[in-house]
């Protein structure tokens, strides 16, 4: 989230699109209720189904799964055409005025430089025109035809209300009403918030969906303001923490990158990470990258990381492919290229696509280790559960070890919520049976491995042997020790940059925050963005002071928010170019003539002059990017793309299937269906009664939503002869499942490209383990393809078919 859960109460208009906040985030959704009740805020829901969120919305519109970009570009087009633009914001705080290279262009659904064979774009021209001084050229009048604003206007011109209606299935009058409601938030004193979740990410163009909303929010001037922003509602209680700590195959904690093969030494690695500002006076905070990575390497390898050995950079693994994401890992597993799979807090057999392929892949492992508080389907993939898991155990040779772990309530530590708050919690119960903390298990494995390396040597034992492991009990590092390590500490006395005689922090002391990090090896820090969470003043995450001066929703003394305890990112943009709040009732920080101050931690140097330094300090430009340059693989602007399995051709170019630069493995491409074979659109989602695949183990939750079902319209039910509560078979090109049918008015057929499109909605919560009735999940049906940029699987739009069955396998 750019903002926080508590800040949502400050909004005038909440748009829930690409998510179902009331259903999947009921506790966070209370802040929407608060905004409605206390501010008279309005709520818009755009969703293929009339959801629980829609049940309390002021306005609802249906949309065909996978057509969000067309809708969002349509809204942008309408806003531009109708003057619903926060002009001062757009001119000063976005790259609207930046001039783009002549080579950049778009036609027939594709940007310039497309290589169909390699499925990549040549992005060389997706950049600014630079002056001789190295800065980007701009035209503040926005009249140059190569300025971003002119290009954007051209780019969105095709997304007319008719195009939207035809592509998204959203009735034109509903679309226009929503445009009008959104357009009101272009006024400096009206603010909209966007709340989205996996309804936007789980597409082959998920990142572009979110880009679309980010651009709209920039145009409306709603980023950085109370009640505004682009707010990702994270799907697990600590998934934000997972991302922050870099639990991705290509990341290091704090959104640093794992090097790739060609980055053979530290200076080569750093050469593309200089982040020189692209405009005069701009912060471009990533210029501090070297401090972050050196301090990280010092945290990892301590004294073994020296200036002479480039801080042990050579200890870091180097990627030979862009990432070993889970799709790639299972692809390799299915090909027999993986021997051992460690599965920690994750149930891929139900949460990744094409279950048949997952079962095949797991069956080829030599060893599967599952660390989980529950008995997961993944750990029991080899067990025959009749039609619910129809495998032959005798034919599966994989050895499976289940290591029972504690669950959150049995453990101490911090969870990072969607609003980037690190909230410390304490154990509320004793772990049952032989359950152990994950840290205990990892530490014990590590220490045994280290002994093996010590005794037997190995190809490259140094990174293992030299790993810092200075915990009081090496067999069980404590949450406190780990948190302090993430915060970082001084390894040598730190002196004031302007006065070298002035001691700032003595060696061994906890850092105040990441502004104290050095690139000379005198600081260590496990995760730079978390720095400030456990200082010499103690555990800032454990703070529980809920005072909130003037009721702004900031709660600065409650827990700790990264970065620097800042609650609203880009909050400098809440004030105009001179540093006065756009809306005095929404003041966050203001320029008092000498410094920035206010209710939140300023997201700008506190003495940075307002006219000189722009708010978006993490970008090289200092401004928000309507044009993303080379940031995304699939284009600097979002362009409409159909899902890989779609009921209609891409209206911009029938030859384009799915996202033209998404990675698809050949076997999976062969399993992609056409609408001639499979006429119905499937989509997946969560229900309030359950949390993923956990709560079906709980008898209360199981009683409240006991059995797998799918939702279809009354029209589709009539067409297929399906009765309410009857059993149905649903199948795709990859598998088949059985479910009870919930026949509802909440799903209506849509008309897209002249065709009637029926949606089959499928909740995700059932499997063959636990207390609920045995059932299935949509992942038995969904295609094995992910987003072009981050490989999140395309769960939200795929093709299937449905038929009633006389006597199905369900209870």
């Amino acid at each position, binding site marked *: 989230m750019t903002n926080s859960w508590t800040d949502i109460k400050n909004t005038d208009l909440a748009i829930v699109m690409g998510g179902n906040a*009331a*259903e999947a985030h*009921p*506790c966070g*959704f*209370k802040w929407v*209720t608060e905004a*409605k*009740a206390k501010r*008279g805020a309005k709520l818009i829901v755009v969703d293929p189904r*009339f959801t*629980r*969120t*829609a*049940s*309390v919305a*002021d306005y*609802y519109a249906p949309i065909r799964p996978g057509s969000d970009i067309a809708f969002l570009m349509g809204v942008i087009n309408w806003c531009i055409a109708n003057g619903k633009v926060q002009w001062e914001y757009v001119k000063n705080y976005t790259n609207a005025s930046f001039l783009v290279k002549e080579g950049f262009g778009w036609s027939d659904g594709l940007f310039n430089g497309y290589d169909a064979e390699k499925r990549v774009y040549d992005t060389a021209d997706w950049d600014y025109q630079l002056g001789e001084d190295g800065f980007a050229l701009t035209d503040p009048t926005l009249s140059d035809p190569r300025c971003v604003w002119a290009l954007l206007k051209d780019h969105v011109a095709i997304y007319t209300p008719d195009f939207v209606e035809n592509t998204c299935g959203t009735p034109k009058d509903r679309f226009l009403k929503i445009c009008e409601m959104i357009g009101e938030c272009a006024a400096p004193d009206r603010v909209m918030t966007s709340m989205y979740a996996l309804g936007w990410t789980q597409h082959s163009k998920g990142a572009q969906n979110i880009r679309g909303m980010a651009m709209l929010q920039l145009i409306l001037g709603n980023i950085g303001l109370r009640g505004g922003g682009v707010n990702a509602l994270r799907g697990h209680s600590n998934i934000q923490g997972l991302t922050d700590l870099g639990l991705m195959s290509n990341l290091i904690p704090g959104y640093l990158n794992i090097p790739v093969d060609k980055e053979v030494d530290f200076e080569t690695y750093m050469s593309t990470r200089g982040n020189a500002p692209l405009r005069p006076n701009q912060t471009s905070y990533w210029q501090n990258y070297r401090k972050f990575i050196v301090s990280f390497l010092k945290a990892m390898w301590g004294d073994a990381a020296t200036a002479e050995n480039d801080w042990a950079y050579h200890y870091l693994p180097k990627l030979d492919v862009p990432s070993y994401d889970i799709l790639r890992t299972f692809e390799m597993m299915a090909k027999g290229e993986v021997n051992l799979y460690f599965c920690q807090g994750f149930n891929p057999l139900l949460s990744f696509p094409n279950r048949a392929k997952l079962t095949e892949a797991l069956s080829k492992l030599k060893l599967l280790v599952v660390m989980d508080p529950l008995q997961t389907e993944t750990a029991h993939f080899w067990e025959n559960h009749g039609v619910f898991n129809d495998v032959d155990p005798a034919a599966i040779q994989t050895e499976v070890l289940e290591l029972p772990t504690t669950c959150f309530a049995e453990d101490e530590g911090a969870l990072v919520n969607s609003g980037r708050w690190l909230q410390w919690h304490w154990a509320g119960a004793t772990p049952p049976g032989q359950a152990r903390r994950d840290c205990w298990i990892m530490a014990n494995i590590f220490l045994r491995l280290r002994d093996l390396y010590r005794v037997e040597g190995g190809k490259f034992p140094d990174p293992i042997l030299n790993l810092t492991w200075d915990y009081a009990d090496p067999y069980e590092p404590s949450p406190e020790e780990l948190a302090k390590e993430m915060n970082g500490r001084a390894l040598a006395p730190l002196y004031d940059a302007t006065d070298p005689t002035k001691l700032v922090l003595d060696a061994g002391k906890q850092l105040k925050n990441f502004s104290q990090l050095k690139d000379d090896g005198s600081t260590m820090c496990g995760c730079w963005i978390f720095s400030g969470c456990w200082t010499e003043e103690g555990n800032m995450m454990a703070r529980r002071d809920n005072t909130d001066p003037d009721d702004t929703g900031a709660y600065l003394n409650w827990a700790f928010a990264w970065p620097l305890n800042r609650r609203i990112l880009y909050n400098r943009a809440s004030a105009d170019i001179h540093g006065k709040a756009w809306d005095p009732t929404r003041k966050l920080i203001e320029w008092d003539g000498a410094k920035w101050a206010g209710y939140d931690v300023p997201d700008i140097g506190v003495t940075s002059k307002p006219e000189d330094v722009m708010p978006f300090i993490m970008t090289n430009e200092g401004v928000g990017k309507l044009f993303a340059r080379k940031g995304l693989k699939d284009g600097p602007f979002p362009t409409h793309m159909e899902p890989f399995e779609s009921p209609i051709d891409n209206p911009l170019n029938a030859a384009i299937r799915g996202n033209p630069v998404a990675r698809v493995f050949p076997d999976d491409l062969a399993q992609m269906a056409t609408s001639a074979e499979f006429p119905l659109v499937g989509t997946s989602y969560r229900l*309030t*009664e359950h949390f993923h695949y956990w709560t079906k183990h709980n*008898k*209360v*939750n*199981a*009683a*409240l*939503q*006991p*059995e*797998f*079902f799918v939702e279809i319209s009354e029209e589709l039910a009539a067409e297929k002869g399906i*009765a*309410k*509560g*009857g059993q149905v078979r649903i199948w795709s090109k990859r598998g088949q499942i059985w479910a*009870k*049918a*919930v*026949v*509802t*008015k*909440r799903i209506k057929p849509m008309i897209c490209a002249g065709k009637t499109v029926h949606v089959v909605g499928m909740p995700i919560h059932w499997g063959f383990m636990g*207390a*609920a*009735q045995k059932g299935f999940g949509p992942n038995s049906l969904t295609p094995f393809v992910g987003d072009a940029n981050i490989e999140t699987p395309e769960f939200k739009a795929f093709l299937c078919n449905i038929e009633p069955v006389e006597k199905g396998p*369900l*209870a």
Partner: protein
Amino acid sequence: MTTRAPEPTTAAANPPVQPMEVNLLPSDVVRASAMPNLPAPDRQLTKVAKLIDVSKCIGCKACQSACIEWNDTQPELGVNVGVYENPHDLTPDMFTLMRFTEYENPQTGDFEWLIRKDGCMHCEDPGCLKACPAPGAIVQYSNGIVDFIHENCIGCGYCVTGCPFDIPRVSKVDHKSYKCTLCSDRVAVGQGPACAKACPTQCISFGPKDEMLAHAEDRIADLKARGYENAGIYDPQGVGGTHVIYVLHHADQPSLYAGLPDDPQISPLVQGWKGPAKTVGLAALGLAAAGAVLHGLLSRPNRVQPEDEMQAQALVNGGAEDRA
């Protein structure tokens, strides 16, 4: 030395953690089934109410979950029958239930998904209590809570007939009647009901009834500003008002919400019976006994007079026809 718990003022009331004496006493009972002539209570508790703002409800079932957890009931694992209601109806193990109604509003052309938390309304004039022949099986406290005292319940089911909202459910296991207690055990120690505390959108609030009515008026003003002209309070006067009240977007049509009675009344048979029955059916108890009965009210053995049995049976028969 422990002190009496305070009366709860909000759903999230958190009384001090040290043990306190309960503050809902036998002497706070103002009415008890089949026990006329109770002595006047020596104090009047603040009248409470649970306000359910249907327009804020997202149907998440946190209230159902909290109810199961707090009362430690164990509803059985069911199946899906094509709807979101689970269990499919109120049961002796499920005192509250989200009911979902799909409604095409003919006036606006818009679709609405109306979600209502169903459960005991805690009538000011409780039909269940009036119909109940078992002395002290159903009581009403001066704060308005209507509670079933299971030790005294004989499982006859007359309360079901007496209820204009079809709420109580008789267990086939222990032959006792069950329904929402408005968490009288929590209220007694200064806490609001479990459902209200669990509700993430604060659609359920709890407190003094006059405050709840005032809060409801604010909510209605908001709903009217959003175009719900007929938004209003559901506090039906046919049963003397209730201690569970709703804010409805369509207060002119309560029955839209999964059959919420438009104008609930206690069956005339119950009303008729209670008049003469007061003296006839319950004469055996006598005034003199009232003090002693009250003293042991909450743990009395079951006692039913033959006349009660006969008259109540007539009521059930008649009632059944009345309802058909």
